[in-house]
């Protein structure tokens, strides 16, 4: 039965997808292709859509694949399945967290994990800015991504010097969308 398959398939994804969406995509690919729900081309398209719409990529993809296989019910079942493991794990961890955090061994592990995570996030940010800002096509540096990067960066970080708190992340997303339309569409 397709609903049960969707539930089990995406439960697997929810249970084993470590390291955010980019770690999850290969896993989702395996699950979706092994059940034969979609062909590779359609799945690649769905990944593209999930990346360019708001919300967690894994959840978007589950909704999309579920809907394509079994309509509203399918999308609900797949979304629920992908979310359920992390929901339960966090509830358990939170309930235990206070006691566990006091354990010196746990603290030792966390002392390594936290700076490591900061390094990973910093590298991801730096890499994304470079990759999206410095685009070279036919050995010509593209001007628009570079200008967009400089303007948006100056606006976001510079606005803090003028007003406390500066531009909120949500406002930056709105401005960047409008700037993208203006830069490429007009």
């Amino acid at each position: 039965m397709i609903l049960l398959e969707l539930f089990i398939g995406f439960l697997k994804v929810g249970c084993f997808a470590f390291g955010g969406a980019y770690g999850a995509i290969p896993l989702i690919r395996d699950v979706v292709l092994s059940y034969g729900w979609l062909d590779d081309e359609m799945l690649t398209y769905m990944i593209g859509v999930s990346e360019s719409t708001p919300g967690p990529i894994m959840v978007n993809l589950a909704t999309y694949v579920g809907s394509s296989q079994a309509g509203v019910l399918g999308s609900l079942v797949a979304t629920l399945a992908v979310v359920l493991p992390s929901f339960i794990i966090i509830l358990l961890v939170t309930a235990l967290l206070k006691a566990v955090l006091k354990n010196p061994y746990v603290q030792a592990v966390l002392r390594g994990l936290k700076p490591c995570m900061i390094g990973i996030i910093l590298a991801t940010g730096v890499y994304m800015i470079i990759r999206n800002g410095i685009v070279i096509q036919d050995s010509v540096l593209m001007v628009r991504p570079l200008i967009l990067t400089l303007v948006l960066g100056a606006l976001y970080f510079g606005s803090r010097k003028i007003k406390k708190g500066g531009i909120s992340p949500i406002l930056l997303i709105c401005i960047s969308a409008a700037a993208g339309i203006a830069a490429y569409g007009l």
Partner: protein
Amino acid sequence: MNLFLDLFLTFAKIGLFTFGGGYAMIALIENTCVEKKQWITHDEMMNTIVVAESTPGPIAINCATYVGYKQKGIVGALIATIGMILPSFCIIFAISKFLDHFLEITWIAHAFQGIKIAVGILILDAAIKMLQTMQKKPLPKAFMLCAFAAMLLINIFSVRISSIVLMLAAGLISLIIFMVSKPAARGGAGK
């Protein structure tokens, strides 16, 4: 405002403006849940993200569940998580039913060219804020720099190594350092 409603609306807003995966969302959580609403402290957010990174599943869901639980128990966790998912669920569902060629719509593609850049900036911002609160000692600095260099290389050469491998290695090394140094310190104090 009713706290349940507030949780729901806040996370619906975060869900609606989170693009490009969990890291970009950290800046949004920091801005709303830590700075504006003061539902959690910066430290708690760091702990949640570390837990989120070390457990499976979308980081955004983990954060919503944690903040909701802290404010209003299991019901709060449920409401915050549903709030986080609902906007994208509706959007994706509508796209899957009515839009066959979503990626070919030019103005959306153009908007996304801009959003992609904003996402990078938000991730950098989240990282900088975390760096500012990090202990300025040699060991954390070394962990941070190694992870930074490794992750950058992984990205540049698109190696299929998940960030979880780096996290595991860092946790393990840190534990070993602790276990090696602890008996020595104790022995030293005992003499």
